[in-house]
């Protein structure tokens, strides 16, 4: 099972074992990672599962497209590496992924 590390805004690291096929957001919720709200339940429509993908993982994870790109376009806190974690499916290649959780979900 791929391991994902969430670094929260206080610097704490939360390493979780994710299931292939679920989303990075769902992995966070399943393990009670703080700072991921996911109000809309995971269909890319509320932007409250925002994360910053660690620089060395950006190429593998990829860029936001379609609705996700539209949602991030109006996001005050968008930075390089910004993704909505409900739109990142967990796969074996993402074993070791590191993402940072912002201080606030909008």
């Amino acid at each position, binding site marked *: 099972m791929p391991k994902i590390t969430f670094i929260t805004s206080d610097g704490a690291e939360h390493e979780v074992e994710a299931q292939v096929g679920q989303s990075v957001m769902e992995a966070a919720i399943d393990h009670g990672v703080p700072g991921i*709200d996911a109000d809309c339940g995971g269909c890319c429509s*509320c932007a409250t599962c925002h994360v910053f993908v660690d620089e060395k993982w950006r190429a593998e994870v990829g860029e936001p497209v379609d*609705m996700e790109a539209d949602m991030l376009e*109006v996001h005050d806190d968008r930075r390089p590496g910004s993704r909505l974690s409900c739109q990142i499916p967990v796969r074996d290649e993402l074993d070791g992924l590191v993402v940072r959780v912002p201080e606030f979900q909008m």
Partner: protein
Amino acid sequence: MTTADVGDTQAQGAPDAPPGFAERVMPLDPYQVELEAIDVAQPHLFQARQQYAYFERLRKEAPVHYSPSGEFGPYWSITRYEDIQYVDTHHHVFSSEPAIVLQDPQEELPMEMFIAMDPPKHDRQRKEVSPVVGPRNLAVLQHTIRERVCNILDSLPRNETFNWVDLVSIELTTQMLATLFDFPFEDRRKLTWWSDVATARVEPGGLCETDEERREILRECLTYFMGLWEQRKDNEDGNDLISMLARGESTRDMPPMEFLGNLILLIVGGNDTTRNSISGGLVALDEFPDEMAKLRANPELIPNMVSEIIRWQTPLAYMRRRANQDTTLGGHTIREGDKVAMWYASGNRDPEIFADADRLLIDRDNARRHMSFGFGVHRCMGNRLAEMQLRILWEEILPRFPKIEIMGDPVRVRSTFVQGYTELPVRLPA
């Protein structure tokens, strides 16, 4: 094919219209009218709180429903949670222009506001002002909000009946708006007035009886704000909404009607919604006394209760979209140009998502999934501010008032858009 043709197609095979249909006044009981003739967007249904019975029937029998003869023309009603979410997140197909209510803008007063624009113009204008109500600024505002909440609650009369809407709900939201706009504090009730006028139905006995009267009042609003704009446009430091609009690259050259539109948007957005969730929370807790007891015993439930109150109240019943191409939804063809009402008030009572949805359950595990803030790029910009105001209010109410007596039935706003209250008689025993 025009929208009228779609209406004709829909009506084929329908039995004779029931008596109410000729006058197009819906009976209070949704089962006293033929499904095809249902037109839920009638204010008397909302005032009598019968809209929910209509929504229940529509969700069961016609979740994507065409009303051929609404007050403002034909429109589709979308009533299931997932369909609403679909429409809300497909803004390339379902446009927010030119209006987000069923009534189209008036030619005499063509206000423009970013809630009723599509990307990319929407995105640019929204980004200029959204930081004001964003979480970072809220951390700064938190202290002010609590201070004002305490002052308002401490000044409430004891042992006499007063209108909670006026002394608490309106007062708190208006003070908050005055702060965000850095609006002259002694004039702050003008904000409430303009907000009410902006959403009021023009009708005999209404807040405005003629369109001309309404336009006059909104022009007065524009003139007042133009004055503030002039004062602030060269002010580099102002952190209020007017200064930000006056300085913002995408907003500083706005034509007057667009300035007015965006002001109205911010005033209504920050006013009606939170106001009616403040009143609605008390109405709901009175209706479900077990929940009030639960709250008193478990004040740590306040943040979740805030989401649940916003779900239960749904202060804005719907947002309207217009299809900008032919598309299908739930097996129906929605034609280019058709109006589509996404009934958030119905989605928030959809039993597929919320068990026992008509009940207030302050510890409901998925209360945050409510759709009162909308979904997609137009999602409410002030959501965190609204939640903070409600949270602080209840944190301060509980220790102060061990008993809050509701002295009579609340009076509801006559609207299909704003789900709110004008009166809620309350007494606080000394």
